[in-house]
């Protein structure tokens, strides 16, 4: 199995580069840090998921280890104003991702200008889209607020729609005594996959998806100097065309998807409070019934995090998400598609803990109680009629990063 092989190679590599450093605290292997401006970093995450009903990231009703994330990146600064960086990612997530390695990002960043109060940077290549607080590092367990990113705003079943794009991006930062104002703006081609087709058209039909025109995205963010407050507004839109082949029921249609996320985070002493709200206007035309529709998806969460000592934190989160905010109980969508109404909404409580065992090794565990199936992928749950509306999940992960 390629995923297993990659994991093994990575573990051997990890063992090699950290030999003699395991007990110390240097994040970069000393032999590599001798090359000025070069850094190598990576992460290895293994999860375990158990559900009482339904499947999340593999056969979780029996207990699933099919959640694994391996990343390795290099960055090099040949000049103070130029950064070259790339990351490879292998991700195993149930039937959605089989662990085949992908280029997560690969880009060049030029600093156009830097003064006391501003900085302007232009980057070209494959970018992680700067959407909300977590999208750009959603696969890095150490940066997530819980075992998984909040599914209400960062759906894993359609992650690739908004994960990254091949194009150009402009970053502007303005520094003032009251805080920092940042703007990111870019255009690029989204990096699509089969999960996007399954989400849009219900299954993998004969034919190809392509991005109709470049995706546009922008984020404006404000952070106070002490990082006590952080607020951001992100927007992305993309157009995806489907070119059917023989045997496809959906016709040659186009989907427009907008994605708006408002984010607010407050840090004070041992508390962090985070809330994000997402609106997703989507229209599908030209596919024919029952695929054509026009809905506005909605999702939001509120999370409280409490730090108990320097290495332990506890969190609690409530979230809701709807395929169509005008049809929150899912009945109209159920009539249109013939799928159960619970397919179109999700309400979920999560409580969990995180323990930073060392500055490199982290353990995290969550329990979540769910009403609705909107977070579940039909690739892991091929029979919608078999879904249970109410289900519970325990998830545990261990992550090592350097």
């Amino acid at each position, binding site marked *: 199995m390629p995923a297993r092989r990659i994991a093994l190679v990575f573990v051997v590599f990890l063992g090699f580069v950290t030999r003699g450093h395991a007990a110390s*605290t240097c994040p970069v292997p000393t032999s590599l840090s001798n090359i000025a401006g070069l850094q190598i970093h990576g992460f290895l995450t293994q999860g375990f998921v158990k559900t009482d009903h339904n499947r999340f990231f593999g056969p979780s009703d029996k207990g699933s280890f099919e959640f694994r994330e391996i990343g390795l990146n290099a960055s090099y600064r040949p000049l103070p104003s130029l950064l070259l960086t790339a990351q490879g990612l292998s991700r195993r997530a149930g039937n959605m991702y089989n662990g085949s390695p992908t280029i997560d990002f690969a880009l060049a960043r030029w600093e156009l200008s830097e003064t006391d109060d501003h900085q302007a940077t232009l980057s070209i290549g494959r970018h992680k889209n700067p959407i909300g607080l977590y999208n750009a590092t959603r696969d890095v367990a150490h940066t997530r607020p819980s075992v998984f990113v909040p599914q209400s705003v960062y759906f894993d079943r359609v992650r690739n729609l908004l994960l990254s794009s091949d194009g150009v991006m402009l970053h502007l930062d303005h520094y003032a005594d009251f805080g920092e104002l940042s703007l990111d703006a870019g255009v690029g081609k989204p990096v699509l996959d089969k999960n996007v087709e399954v989400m849009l058209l219900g299954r993998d039909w004969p034919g190809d998806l392509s991005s109709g025109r470049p995706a546009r995205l922008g984020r404006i963010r404000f952070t106070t100097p002490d990082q006590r407050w952080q607020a951001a507004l992100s927007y992305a839109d993309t157009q995806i065309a489907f070119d059917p082949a023989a045997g496809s029921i959906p016709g040659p249609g186009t989907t427009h998807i907008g994605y708006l996320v408002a984010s607010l985070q407050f840090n004070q002493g041992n508390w962090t409070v985070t809330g994000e709200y997402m609106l997703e206007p989507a229209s599908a035309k030209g596919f024919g019934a029952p695929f054509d529709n026009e809905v506005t998806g909605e999702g939001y969460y509120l999370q409280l995090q409490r730090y108990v000592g320097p290495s332990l934190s506890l969190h609690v989160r409530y979230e809701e998400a709807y395929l169509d905010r005008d049809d929150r109980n899912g009945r109209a969508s159920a009539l249109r598609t013939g799928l159960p109404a619970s397919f179109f909404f999700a309400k979920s409580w999560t409580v969990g803990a995180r323990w930073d065992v060392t500055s490199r090794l982290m353990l995290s565990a969550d329990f979540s109680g769910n009403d609705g199936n909107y977070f579940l992928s039909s690739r892991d749950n091929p029979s919608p009629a078999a879904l249970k509306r109410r289900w519970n999940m325990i998830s545990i992960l261990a992550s090592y990063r350097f």
Partner: protein
Amino acid sequence: MLLLLASLPAVAEPVLVVNPSVPVNDLKRNEARLIFSLRRSQWKDGSPIRVHVLDDQNPLHVRFCREVLRLYPRQLRRAWDRQTFSGTGQAPNVVESIEAMRETIAREPGAVGYLPRELVDGSVKILEVH
């Protein structure tokens, strides 16, 4: 763990230090925060800024973050992780001891870090943060 922390000797007052080549004599707190968040890549004369820190849980690092930068160590760590793993920046170099910190800062042009005030000698320059 608590016992271990309680038994540590009192940590000396940390001061921000740079290589004597650095063309700056003091810093505003917000500038120091940007430098240690690795958001700044060069000093005023265009020479590269090279940031060195101790381990996240080192008492001198914790005290430097809390008293000089007035941030929590976890805030810096999150900023470094986000930059490193999203392709928008790099992480600081982590040195293994206070002695290694002083040697590196003294040797490397553009280097910036921190030391206990009583261990500062003529090989490095203190920048007062205000």
